[in-house]
């Protein structure tokens, strides 16, 4: 649902999204030194695989965006890592779009990075950090997707609001799952959380 296909958003939104993405990518790639490359690559492969895992919610199911986890583990390098995931999804499944890639990347990666950086400050209590980062990332993505639609034309306002509501169950699932993930990492492999991304 975070993937807006081509042909929906207006040109100013496309340009704004592309500009945000280029900025984020520049910051992220600068932090992606050769030493951090294999870790980032492994995690972006993981985000792609995680998007194939379905979490049952009521009669339906959702898949995780894992934005909060990416932000906590990679910081700004989450931008290129999420970009790889989006390019893979576009090439393999035709999900998302080509021209709209900048908007989709900004919508997912910017909240993920900011929420992740916030979550890192709370790592004294790993489960709380995971839940906060995950909820922040999903809520931020919901707001940005709704904004991209609403700014593209008044006629999309209703759709934007309705979409934002559909993110609420995802927020709950993502918070519980990410809290479990970060809690597990803190127990099993604490050094992975201490690394300054």
């Amino acid at each position: 649902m975070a993937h807006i296909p081509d042909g929906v958003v207006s040109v100013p939104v496309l340009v704004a999204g592309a500009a945000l993405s280029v900025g984020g990518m520049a910051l992220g790639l600068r932090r992606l030194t050769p030493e951090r490359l294999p870790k980032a690559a492994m995690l972006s492969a993981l985000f792609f695989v995680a998007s194939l895992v379905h979490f049952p919610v009521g009669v339906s199911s959702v898949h995780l965006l894992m934005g909060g986890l990416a932000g906590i583990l990679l910081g700004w390098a989450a931008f290129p890592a999420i970009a790889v995931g989006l390019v893979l999804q576009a090439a393999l499944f035709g999900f998302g779009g080509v021209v709209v890639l900048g908007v989709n990347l900004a919508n997912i990666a910017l909240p993920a990075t900011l929420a992740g950086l916030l979550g890192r400050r709370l790592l004294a209590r790993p489960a709380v950090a995971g839940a906060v980062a995950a909820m922040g990332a999903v809520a931020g993505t919901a707001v940005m997707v709704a904004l991209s639609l609403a700014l593209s034309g008044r006629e999309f306002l209703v759709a934007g609001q309705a979409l934002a509501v559909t993110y609420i169950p995802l927020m709950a699932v993502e918070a519980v799952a990410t809290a479990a993930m970060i809690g597990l990492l803190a127990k099993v492999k604490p050094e992975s959380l201490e690394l300054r991304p």
Partner: protein
Amino acid sequence: MSALVLSPSAALEPPCRAKPLLARLDPRSRVLAALAFALLVVCLRSLPAAIAALMPAILLALLAGLQPGPTLRRLAALEGFMILTLLSLPFTMGGPALFSWGDWHWGLEGTRRAVLILTKGSAIALSVLALLGTLELTELGHALARLRVPPRFVALFVLSARYVDVLRAEYARLRLAMRARGFCPRASLHCWRSLGHLLGMLVVSSLERAERVHAAMRLRGFNGHLHLLDEHRASGLDWGFAAALAVTGALLAVLDLA
């Protein structure tokens, strides 16, 4: 790579290998063609032009030898993402109503807009599946590098593409272990937390794998650059393809303005 995959990996395999014509093109031409076609179609404003844009997309899909079943399923999934937007448009755009229930008016203007979005989105998705979906991911990475995408991003892309299959196999193994212990997915806190632990274990094992991979790469003198071994040259076929695409684009633009 496929020997490592435990579960049926049909979802990740491209629907079909490219047939000769598209496969003989330089991967760079395919990337550029996908970008150019998408840019053009996004700019179309009239419904006849958008419907006409489906034709070259379908032609590309046929040339690429995409199987109709899986391709249509993917397109349907794509439209599923936008169902809310598409269904709300007829109510929010105003204009003359086609039919109404009480205060709800299904407008003509919005219907036209929704069909336009649906058509444009499908045309682009179809062309991307045909041009890029049938490329080997490594080839796609190398084509991106030849097109001056930053080398760090290309290295990240090629490495991740390589490990998607490995991690999927690992995921299938862990999931099988959970099933063997009687886990069945349900909408409950316990289930979400267990799946979270499963993904957490995947994070742990991928971080450890990353350390081993990094050590092995350092041993071989890795300095952040992947060496590109492919020797693709743009041939007459590529120029012919570009010309055909340009003519198609011009025709679509004329149809759109007419």
